């Protein structure tokens, strides 16, 4: 697993609420049996017309930066982890929204993609700042659990201590579980 500490980057803004995982990665791209190669299919039907020609001036075409700033309820719908893989594969390290769908949030955390949940007001201000000044750098500091931008200022975000340590040190859940098989066997024996 990669590690996350401080992410400092310009951001891509897609100010749409309820972006579902079918938009992030359409179902017809899920037939492969590997994890790689989803980045170029990210938001495919928003970036390309039916005939495959690119949609002009779409915020995702000519991606700038590794932070995605999106509307409320990001990642709703299907549990497909391919959505997190596609974002990660396209180079994103963090997604900022005022809320995340639960399954997407877990998938993101399992792929070293940091979901940063901010207040609705902060998201509104940040979106406005980035629209006015697209070259603005946003800083996400996982250690301090803060996000900041020059005009919008700083806000703190929540993450549980276990997950934070996983992301900062590059640990994964499966390693934890495999290392603790004794507890699992003990549970099985008593149930």
């Amino acid at each position, binding site marked *: 697993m990669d590690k996350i500490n401080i992410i400092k980057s310009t951001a891509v803004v897609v*100010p*749409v*609420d*309820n972006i*579902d995982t*079918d*938009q992030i990665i*359409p*179902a*017809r791209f*899920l*037939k*492969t*049996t*590997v*994890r790689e190669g989803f980045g170029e299919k990210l938001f495919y*039907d928003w970036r390309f017309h*039916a005939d495959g020609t690119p949609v002009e001036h779409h915020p995702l075409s000519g991606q700038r930066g590794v932070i995605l700033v999106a*509307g*409320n*309820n990001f990642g*709703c*719908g*299907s*549990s*497909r*982890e*391919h959505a*997190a893989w596609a974002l990660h594969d396209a180079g994103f390290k963090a997604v900022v929204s005022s*809320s*995340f*769908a*639960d*399954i997407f949030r*877990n*998938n993101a955390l*399992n*792929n070293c993609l940091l979901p940063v949940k901010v207040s609705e007001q902060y998201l509104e201000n940040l979106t406005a700042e980035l629209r006015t000044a697209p070259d603005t750098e946003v800083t996400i500091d996982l250690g301090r659990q803060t996000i900041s931008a020059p005009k919008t200022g700083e806000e703190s975000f929540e993450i*549980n*201590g*276990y*997950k934070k340590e996983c992301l900062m040190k590059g640990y*994964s*859940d*499966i390693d*934890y*579980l*495999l290392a*603790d*098989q004794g*507890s*699992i066997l*003990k*549970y*099985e024996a008593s*149930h």
Partner: protein
Amino acid sequence: MGTTLFDKIWESHVVKHIPDGPDVLYIDRHLVHEVTSPQAFNALKAKGLKVFRPERTFATCDHNVPTLGQDKPITDESSRRAVEQLGINTKENGITYFPLGDPGNGIVHVIGPEQGIVLCGQTVVCGDSHTATHGAFGNIAFGIGTSEVEMVLATQCLLQSKPRQARITVDGTLASNVTPKDVILYIISRLGTDGCTGCFVEYAGEVFRNMSMEGRLTVCNMSIEMGARGGMVAPDDRTFEYIAGRRFAPKGDELDEKIAYWRTLKTDSDAVFDKEWHFDASDIRPMVTYGTNPGMGVAVDAAIPDSAVGCDTATFDKALAYMDFHRGEPMTGKKIDYVFVGSCTNGRIEDFRAFAKAVAGRKKADGVTVWLVPGSKEVESKIESEGIGDELRAHGFEIRQPGCSACLAMNADKIPEGKYAVSTSNRNFEGRQGYGARTILAGPLVAAEAAVTGRLGMPV
């Protein structure tokens, strides 16, 4: 303070609490399909691991399967490979698999209950958000990602933070033309597509007590569409009757013992929920959606509103533009090109019985393509043995073979660009049923009305 149904099941499955972290949660049943599992099996193999508890895992192929000519090899090469890979992976790991054409094959969330794989008081997971379905039996059932599929295959456990809890109570009596699908579409339209994010929901009240098991499956199935991890209904005699005699269900004394325990699975009267909602059954009418998320719904005899819960104006406008609908327009009378009856939401025998009854001897409307897709081989065989198939075919309808089909259009069952489809499935997202397809979610009775008239209208 008392505990909830959810608390009781959760606590009995906690292997270990991690301080300032999630719980290690033991998983009783793991359902697997071909789309979200291959990368997990690959990862397991790369680590030199085998499936830890194969007897707790059951697999089927459903998303990539054609709904015609299932006796022949799948023509789409990548779909065929995905399905073949599941056959290989399950064989290598000793997992029970229902391959295409097997009498136990079907959509994962239809066969789980049907085969008696899913019981009560269990933790049930699947790499599929509609795993919420299985909460209908009083289970903690939720969708997971592929990394988590790998964890369950390797250790039969997951790391999960205990979610918040919500209760939705619907009392009163439903009108005869209101189905369980209308109930859940109504609830989602009131709470919004993220109204229950971070929560597990218990459905309570007269309406759910009086609802059939298949109806409860429909309701719990769509819990995820309002953001909930899952939904559940406390098990009762109706639940136990449904389970008895199923292929993988316990039998005889073992079943009696289980039932005695399952009867204790209910929320204490003094338990407190983080969120509570109450609705009245008499306010619920047959529903349709007009936008591009399941929360954008209205009664079929209502007009398109000015806004939707949990949807800002720009997002609302984008949805209406995609649908080519406008604020204030009535939904009744809108022209329909396709009707799809099926999916893990409404692909069970009761749905086809309801559809056939509502068609009531009328012919399929000219110019409307109707796909009736059973949720499983068992549903397919009941459609035929009950004479529903012959009757519907005589009136111009086509019954296809089981699978997820047009719900997400991974196979050839795609709604063409710009066309309107009334679908009994669960998602009306942009492009969900095919590039540019326009989906109107509804229950089987509204679907029947659309199939015989070619337009949206109030079912009798």
